[in-house]
């Protein structure tokens, strides 16, 4: 039986990796290649992809990617580049052979040799969580996803289902049920139709593209309390909102100079119905409330979610009042994925994960947004 080998990514593996990623999100090869290029080749923080591949008999059968991220901590906003573990998959016939541990051991040693002091994993599901906790990673807890569902009481869904089984008429089923069109865009259909697109009198309005410079200016104006947060500068936001697997919408408050923004995201692939609030900033509580109300009123989303692990109580309270409740997802990750950190200063990762003089094992030391993870 051929042995397993863990090797760094090389360009000749590009097609293999795109094929392997079908096990992660079922995209076709062009979509997966576009995602691979965006996430790893065009990442603003790493000069070349950091992907660790398990190879068996010349074939790529497992992978773990590390995308680059940049974080600022402390009162002076000291900046650090941190590799974030993501995209873990192993072909089904090669599972339960200890490959997760082998890939991660190689990754930890390589990252430490490159001089990184710690690594993050920002949306670890149950399998990744279990494997990571026994290889030196530490959990800050689940992201504490809050979720709002709007019951869909309509004649359209049942009629669409019936039409699917009828000769000739089946082709109208998606149109009738409202399920036609690309997944992400379809979830924003109502928002796109109802929200004003123009800046009128300083009210809230919808953008299909980010207003990067204005968003960066607002973030800078609002200041930073020193908790660990991703750097949100123009290169980051420009890259981040170009994710080819996601669809974004932007609610802006204010005019040229923004008073606030709220970013909504949906997945282009798969049948997921959920829209996520991935970033949300405002100069005042009333602007913050107005942005949320506008999203709810114009979007009328069947499912809307956001992460609340580091939100202040006032914002959680606002979400609760708007009908959000703690998510209840699959076992061992009921309130969403976990945030993980690992020190890279020793093989066992037993050191204390830190950036600068900030320890990172307490969620209270973080300002975490869904945008920072690839879930958003």
């Amino acid at each position, binding site marked *: 039986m051929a042995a397993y080998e863990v090797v760094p990514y090389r360009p000749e593996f590009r097609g293999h990796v795109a094929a392997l990623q079908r096990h992660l999100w079922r995209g076709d090869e062009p979509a997966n290649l576009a995602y691979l290029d965006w996430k790893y080749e065009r990442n603003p923080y790493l000069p070349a992809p950091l992907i660790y591949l398990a190879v068996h008999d010349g074939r790529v059968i497992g992978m773990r990617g590390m995308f680059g991220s940049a974080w600022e901590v402390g009162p002076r906003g000291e900046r650090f580049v941190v590799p974030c573990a993501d995209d873990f998959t192993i072909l089904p016939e090669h599972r*339960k052979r200890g490959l997760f541990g082998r890939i991660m051991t190689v990754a930890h040693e390589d990252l430490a040799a490159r001089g990184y002091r710690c690594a993050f994993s920002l949306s670890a599901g*149950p*399998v990744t969580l*279990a*494997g990571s*906790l*026994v290889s030196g990673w530490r959990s*800050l807890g689940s992201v504490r996803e809050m979720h709002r569902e709007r019951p869909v009481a309509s004649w359209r869904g049942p009629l669409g289902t019936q039409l699917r089984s009828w000769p000739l008429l089946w082709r109208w089923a998606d149109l009738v049920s409202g399920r036609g069109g690309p997944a992400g865009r379809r979830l924003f259909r109502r928002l796109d139709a109802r929200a004003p697109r123009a800046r009128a009198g300083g009210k809230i309005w919808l953008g299909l593209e980010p207003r990067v410079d204005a968003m960066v200016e607002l973030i800078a104006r609002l200041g930073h309390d020193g908790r660990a947060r991703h750097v949100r500068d123009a290169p980051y936001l420009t890259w981040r909102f170009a994710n080819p697997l996601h669809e974004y919408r932007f609610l802006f408050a204010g005019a040229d100079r923004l008073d606030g923004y709220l970013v909504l995201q949906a997945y282009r692939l798969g049948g997921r119905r959920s829209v996520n609030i991935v970033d949300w900033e405002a100069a005042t509580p009333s602007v913050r409330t107005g942005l949320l109300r506008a999203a709810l009123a114009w979007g009328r989303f069947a499912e809307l979610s956001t992460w609340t692990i580091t939100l202040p109580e006032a914002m959680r309270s606002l979400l609760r009042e708007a009908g959000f409740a703690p998510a209840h997802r699959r*076992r061992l990750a009921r309130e969403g994925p976990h945030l993980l950190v690992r020190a890279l200063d020793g093989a066992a990762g037993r050191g204390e994960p830190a950036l600068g003089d900030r320890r990172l094992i307490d969620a209270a030391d973080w300002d975490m947004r869904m945008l920072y993870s690839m879930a958003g």
Partner: protein
Amino acid sequence: MPEPAARAELRQALRALLVESAPELSGELDDDTPLLSSGLVESTTLLDVALWVEDRIDAEVDLGALDLVTAWDSVRAILDFVERHRPAPAFRGPATA
């Protein structure tokens, strides 16, 4: 002192789960075989164990709050964990007519 029957049943069930999930364990699994620190048990099997534990203790397990390598590194440690966390049996008072 003989082992309580309940623990023996738990051990049998846990061993069956581990061997089914990772057949290579069948020849070397005793109560003190290191499972996690040795790398014998990996993420998907550990997940199966976590779900099994949840079912036994009838409560959610917060994996992130545990030092798994210490708390669950052997069959003995996992059984101890289950016994410490499983709900106390309901008190059955004397039957009334």
